[in-house]
């Protein structure tokens, strides 16, 4: 009857474990409420208009992506991210990591594991940071087995939030900032900024770096990459030295009104909840649109459908022009391909390729940030505008160049209205890729799992 005692926090730890314990279920014995909700990130039943926990094959939803990424692993398979629960499954199953077996290596480096598991800080502790990144992705296949979890964000001693990924600390260092001196509210975003950020692999040894030295805007990062003449890959059709943008959610979020008003990621993606009078942080990290009552409505009095409509309206308006830019980029790549075909010279193409690089970079910055269109719609829209301008500028130059080679008309738009057609168009042998992957999943993954199980049996845990 009396619920006054609820105000007092009841905590009786059940187990004691080490600082780098990677298994969520072990931490979960001490913090069942957080653990149970966290395991709910396995839920794939919610799909919003563009996001949600469901599996979405982005290449099927939008086959133009295949052409934009021709020559790069993303053209093989790319999905909209889902719950943290799937981080390991997804990186194992994705075609991008290939089928490393029978002496073959994965086309990806070990660095790819960095944002997928609390085994990462554990192994980094053991072998060192630079050493961890080295080698191909399969090198550490048996080491990395637990999906993203408690040890990624929490100090085992006191449950304080902590940063476990060196790339973030180093990026702060290079900007002359001390990440140990930030506020608690900042930490509620910075734990996410370990992963939900644009990154690249520096040098031969694929050291993970966040490209923030010149600032956080799309232009700042572009300038950073240009000053290194860095490229992620060379485009298969246009031969452009390309940049790939990856989920700059933290960077874009910071340019929006919610960040300016002091919100952190956790305010919307990990709202507080009450259960039996206990307040705690909802660890089912997901789209806030699946939980408007506890997120938006804390600050906004509008009805749920209205708030959801606000989000969709922003996403729709940005998508309209992003789609346009996508089409223009396909055209630019194809037109550049035509120019090469007609014998265009390196020096004639240089300015054009630089434009294509910059335009696609801007497109990708927005496309890769799945929350961006809501987090900071005005900035996203601004960036898309500049991308359209630059893409079209490259096409004006191409029109002149093509004309000078005697081709003075529109270059036909390729027939790429399904993922299959598009992948065929850029010359991918999907059957082989899929068959190899299937074999890899059947034969190699179970071995990795078994090794991991054996290893984990040796971890010291004390029952209290």
């Amino acid at each position, binding site marked *: 009857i009396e619920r006054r005692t609820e105000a007092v926090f009841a905590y009786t730890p059940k187990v004691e474990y080490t600082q780098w314990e990677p298994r969520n279920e072990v931490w979960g014995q001490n913090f069942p409420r957080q653990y149970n909700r966290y395991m709910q990130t396995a839920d794939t039943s919610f799909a919003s208009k563009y996001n949600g926990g469901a599996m979405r094959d982005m290449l099927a939803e939008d086959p133009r992506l295949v052409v934009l990424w021709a020559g790069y692993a993303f053209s093989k398979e790319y999905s909209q991210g889902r719950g943290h629960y799937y981080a390991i499954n997804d990186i194992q199953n994705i075609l991008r990591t290939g089928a490393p077996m029978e002496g073959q290596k994965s086309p990806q480096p070990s660095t790819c594991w960095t944002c997928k598991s609390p085994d990462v800080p554990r192994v980094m502790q053991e072998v060192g940071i630079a050493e961890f990144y080295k080698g191909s992705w399969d090198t550490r296949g048996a080491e990395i087995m637990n999906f993203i979890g408690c040890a990624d964000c929490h100090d085992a001693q006191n449950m304080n939030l902590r940063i476990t990924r060196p790339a973030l600390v180093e990026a702060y260092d290079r900007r002359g900032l001390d990440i140990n001196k930030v506020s608690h509210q900042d930490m509620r975003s910075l734990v996410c900024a370990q992963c939900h950020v644009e990154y690249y692999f520096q040098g031969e040894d694929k050291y993970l770096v966040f490209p923030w030295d010149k600032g956080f805007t799309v232009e700042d990062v572009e300038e950073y990459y240009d000053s290194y003449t860095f490229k992620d890959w060379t485009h298969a059709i246009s031969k452009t030295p390309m940049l790939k943008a990856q989920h700059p959610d933290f960077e874009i979020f910071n340019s929006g009104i919610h960040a300016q008003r002091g919100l952190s990621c956790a305010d919307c993606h990990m709202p507080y909840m009450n259960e039996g009078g206990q*307040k705690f942080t909802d660890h089912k990290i997901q789209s806030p649109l699946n939980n408007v009552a506890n997120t938006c*409505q804390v600050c906004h009095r509008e009805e749920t459908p209205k708030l959801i409509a606000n989000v969709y309206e922003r996403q729709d308006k940005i998508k309209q022009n992003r789609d346009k830019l996508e089409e223009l980029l396909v055209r630019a790549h194809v037109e550049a391909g035509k120019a090469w075909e007609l014998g265009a010279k390196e020096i004639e193409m240089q300015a054009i390729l630089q434009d294509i690089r910059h335009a696609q970079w801007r497109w990708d910055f927005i496309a890769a940030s799945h929350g961006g269109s809501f987090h900071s719609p005005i900035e996203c829209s601004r960036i898309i505008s500049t991308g359209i301008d630059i893409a079209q500028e490259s096409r004006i130059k191409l029109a002149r160049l093509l004309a000078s080679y005697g081709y003075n008309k529109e270059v036909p738009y390729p027939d790429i209205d399904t993922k299959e057609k598009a992948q065929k168009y850029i010359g991918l042998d999907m059957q082989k890729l899929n068959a190899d992957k299937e074999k890899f999943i059947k034969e190699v993954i179970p071995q990795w799992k078994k090794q991991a199980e054996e290893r984990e049996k040796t971890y010291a845990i004390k029952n209290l």
Partner: protein
Amino acid sequence: MIHLIKRLIPPDKWKFPVLIMLGIFFGLFIYSFHISKATSYLSDNPETCINCHIMVPQYATWNHSSHREFTSCNECHVPHNNFFSHYYFKAKDGLRHATIFTLRAEPQVIHIKEAGVQVVQNNCIRCHSNLINSASLMVHNVNHKTNRETRLCWECHKETPHGRVNSLSSTPNALVPLLKSPVPQWLKELTDK
């Protein structure tokens, strides 16, 4: 009437158990009345609202607002047009809150209900009518009063008096005079085992 009472009196052989039951019910009623400090709800003291900690965020924000000096919760949240609606509303609301609280069905983010909105709006107007309505224009224009009074005051005065952030956990560390437990110490010691 007498007939009615007669029909309510149980047959003889039931009289004793019924008496016992009634005693138990009555005792339980007194007990819960006491333990939930229901008596306090007859008063206008804001501290009674935080009898149950659910209301702490609103208490804390009110307590930091300019309205603290002049305005108790009930000044805003209970009708003041007449004695009967005052207590009727209070009882109705109070019982619903208590029920939801006891069932642990309170939402994380509590929203004021439509009925409550009207009550509060009328109370804003009750105190501030001199400021918001121009006597002169009322003479002049029959619509002036409704034009001025139909829009919710807190559409603009968003932060009056509870601020904008609304959640059971929005004032986690607020220092509020949580009432002392009405359960005697000896009973707690006995039941704690």
